[in-house]
């Protein structure tokens, strides 16, 4: 049997069933909830592998299975499933990483009272995420997209008894909703413009030439192509979900959720959905690049947003002290990289980085989770330290992840994917600013990762929690090891010498030769050098003189206190939003009051002053005229109000009677006036 797009619906359905089962199960029944979730995920993984194998046989085609959902007026609303290498690779990644994280959660959530709900939510999330991946309709994608948001909300707020977690969940939900509003608008506009929401539909889909040409052909006011506008609106959704600047603020706060959640949702899968979305609608984003007359290309915006995010995230990560928040900002930064790659025209590089990043970032998060679990939920790196001898496996895998993330050359996957992005940025002819931002971020990434590892694992324990830490059970370490293997091995699928992954993704011929490796060696050497600088800087500042007490001041804080304070404060984005967006609400609310108080009140005051003044002239006149006038006005207002209120008798019969009489009048009018 061959796996075709017709069977694709099975992949998200299985976790959904597991979620339903988990919801039904009695809450004591831990084994069942977790078991069904893991089994469903494992089967989904196998199916995803089958799908990949089937997709690789014809990488250039988009196999679809469309069906009509219901009729909306004359035209049917159609949904569908899509099988191409992009979907298949993503499915394999999500199911594999998800499976490992599920297993890890067995150990991590072991003591939690709501163990069952956790797996239920995780399964729901996996189902929704896989739904996003297999959708062949922007509508189906949007539905699953929102479900992903819901699952994320539930999971971030899983420890809802912590006020900070509840607030973070709310923040994440609302912030991503802002982006989703854009996505929804884009969706509606697209439907309005093309009459379809299917991506591929045998030539009729929105990502196929007919529709694209029509979209690119139309221009709006200001010379903006229609496709650009829709593309940017859709990109808004990606900004929200992928934590891009300026909507990145929710992602670090989302670390309030349990660590497996952070690993699964906020590192490996959900945040990558934004990147996936842009890659999915890439033909739409790309079509305006051929148009010279337009003022702005959609992809240019993407590239610059990505570049800003990459640099910003890396910067802020340097100043964080919470182990998970460092990783969170690192995620923001890496997502910026992917967006950058998309923007500069190499979506295959973006997906390559997405896949490798999913592995090593999940690894890092799970490593962090392992540390946190061992250290009795201590997350502050200043209070950790000295864990290396106690937790050898965790340290080793964490170090692998750190080197992959930093881009330590040749052996680690992060290096190759990052190289691919930098090369693409270098080849971009619009501007080199993104390249420079990317290069700067390379230094910073290597720097903050070194800092993180040195602070957490080296030196001596700086708190009782770190003192008593010990290695976790196999159920937690085995996923780490597997992920570490992936973090190393995955990079070789897309080296410049043998760009198998890129070729398979884009459906082009595979050219493998060492020659390509040599071609870009200049840039490669530069980036290797920059990684070295970053590592060295980190070692010089943190590794050389290891912190001995928790109170000891950070070397950077000593040198640049203001900068570090600002970084620790995340450059004040939250405050900025509180001061702008949040304040806007407050402002409009107070505006009315202000008008009342100052304008009208001033007027009244003025009149009163006038009255007082005139009162001194002629008190009698004043009382009869002005005050009397006010009284009269208010009395008349009250009187008319009362008269209107009398109509509101509260008696349903009265209303009914009025309706009946009105109906009679209407009937009379129709009969006498319009009878045919």
């Amino acid at each position, binding site marked *: 049997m061959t796996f075709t797009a017709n069977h694709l619906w099975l992949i998200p359905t299985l976790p959904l069933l597991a979620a339903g089962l988990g919801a039904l199960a009695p809450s004591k029944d831990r084994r069942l909830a977790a078991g069904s979730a893991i089994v469903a995920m494992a089967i989904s993984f196998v199916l995803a592998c089958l799908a990949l194998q089937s997709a690789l046989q014809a990488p250039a085609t988009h196999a679809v299975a469309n069906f009509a959902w219901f009729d909306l007026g004359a035209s049917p609303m159609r949904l569908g499933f899509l099988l191409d290498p992009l979907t298949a690779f993503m499915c394999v990644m999500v199911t594999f990483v998800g499976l490992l994280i599920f297993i890890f959660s067995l150990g991590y959530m072991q003591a939690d009272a709501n163990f069952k709900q956790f797996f239920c939510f995780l399964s729901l999330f996996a189902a929704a995420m896989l739904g996003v991946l297999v959708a062949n309709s922007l509508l189906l994608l949007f539905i699953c997209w929102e479900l992903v948001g819901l699952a994320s909300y539930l999971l971030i707020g899983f420890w809802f008894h912590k006020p900070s977690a509840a607030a973070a969940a709310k923040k994440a939900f609302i912030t991503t909703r802002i982006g989703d509003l854009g996505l929804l608008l884009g969706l509606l506009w697209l439907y309005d413009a093309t009459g379809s929401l299917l991506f591929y539909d045998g030539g009729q889909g929105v990502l196929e030439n007919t529709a694209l040409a029509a979209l690119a052909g139309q221009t709006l006011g200001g010379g903006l192509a229609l496709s650009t506008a829709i593309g940017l609106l859709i990109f808004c959704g990606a900004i929200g979900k992928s934590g891009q600047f300026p909507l990145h603020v929710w992602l670090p706060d989302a670390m309030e959720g349990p660590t497996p959640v952070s690993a699964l949702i906020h590192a490996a899968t959900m945040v990558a959905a934004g990147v996936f979305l842009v890659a999915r609608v890439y033909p739409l984003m790309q079509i305006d690049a051929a148009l010279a007359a337009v003022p702005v290309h959609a992809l240019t915006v993407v590239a610059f947003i990505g570049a800003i995010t990459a640099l910003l995230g890396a910067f802020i990560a340097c100043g964080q002290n919470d182990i998970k928040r460092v990783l969170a900002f690192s995620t923001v930064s890496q997502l910026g990289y992917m967006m950058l790659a998309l923007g500069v025209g190499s979506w295959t590089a973006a997906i390559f980085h997405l896949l490798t990043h999913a592995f090593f970032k999940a690894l890092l998060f799970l490593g962090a989770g392992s540390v946190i679990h061992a250290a009795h939920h201590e997350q502050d790196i200043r209070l950790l330290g000295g864990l290396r001898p106690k937790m050898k496996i965790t340290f080793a895998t964490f170090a692998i992840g750190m080197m992959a993330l930093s881009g330590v050359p040749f052996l680690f996957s992060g290096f190759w994917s990052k190289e691919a992005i930098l090369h693409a940025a270098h080849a971009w002819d619009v501007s080199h600013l993104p390249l420079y931002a990317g290069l700067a971020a390379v230094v910073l990434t290597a720097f903050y990762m070194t800092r993180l590892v040195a602070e957490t694992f080296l030196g001596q324990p700086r708190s009782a929690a770190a003192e008593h830490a010990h290695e976790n059970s196999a159920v937690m370490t085995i996923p780490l090891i597997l992920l570490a293997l992936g973090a190393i091995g995955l990079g070789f699928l897309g080296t410049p010498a043998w760009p198998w992954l890129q070729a398979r993704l884009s459906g082009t011929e595979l050219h493998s030769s060492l020659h390509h490796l040599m071609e870009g060696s200049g840039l490669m050497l530069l980036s290797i050098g920059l990684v070295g600088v970053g590592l060295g800087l980190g070692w010089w500042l943190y590794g050389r003189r290891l912190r001995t007490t928790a109170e000891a001041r950070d070397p950077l804080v000593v040198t640049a206190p203001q900068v570090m304070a600002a970084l620790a404060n995340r450059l004040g984005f939250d405050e900025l939003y509180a001061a702008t967006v949040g304040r806007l609400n407050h402002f409009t609310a107070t505006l009315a009051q202000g008008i009342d108080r100052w304008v009208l009140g001033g007027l009244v005051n003025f009149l009163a002053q006038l009255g007082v003044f005139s009162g001194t002239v002629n008190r009698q006149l004043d009382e009869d005229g002005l005050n009397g006038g006010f009284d009269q006005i208010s009395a008349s207002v009250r009187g008319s109000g009362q008269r209107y209120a009398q109509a509101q008798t509260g008696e349903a*019969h009265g209303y009914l009677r009025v309706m009946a009489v009105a109906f009679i009048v209407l009937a009379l009018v129709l009969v006498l006036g319009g009878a045919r």
Partner: protein
Amino acid sequence: MTPLHLCLLISSGLFCIGLTGALARSNTILVLLGIELMLNAANLNFIAFWRFGPAPSPANGMIFVLFAIAVAAAEAAVGLALIIAVYRHQKNIRLQEANTLRG
């Protein structure tokens, strides 16, 4: 006098009876039932036009009626629940006494 005329007369009669009942009775349940009667009269019209109308389409009238019945069921359930809630609150169900929302 075609059958259609007859149907329409019957349904308008039913409608007027429902309306009169809803207006005249003080018991909220009966008022609600009067409204149900009016709904039924409307349904009757749908069927009449579907059956005896000029261009009968295969199922339109019927589907309208089905939807109307479903909505009526929902309405009755909510209405009667409201009545029970009101009764619990003020110990009777006379409509004219449920006027706390007056202006």
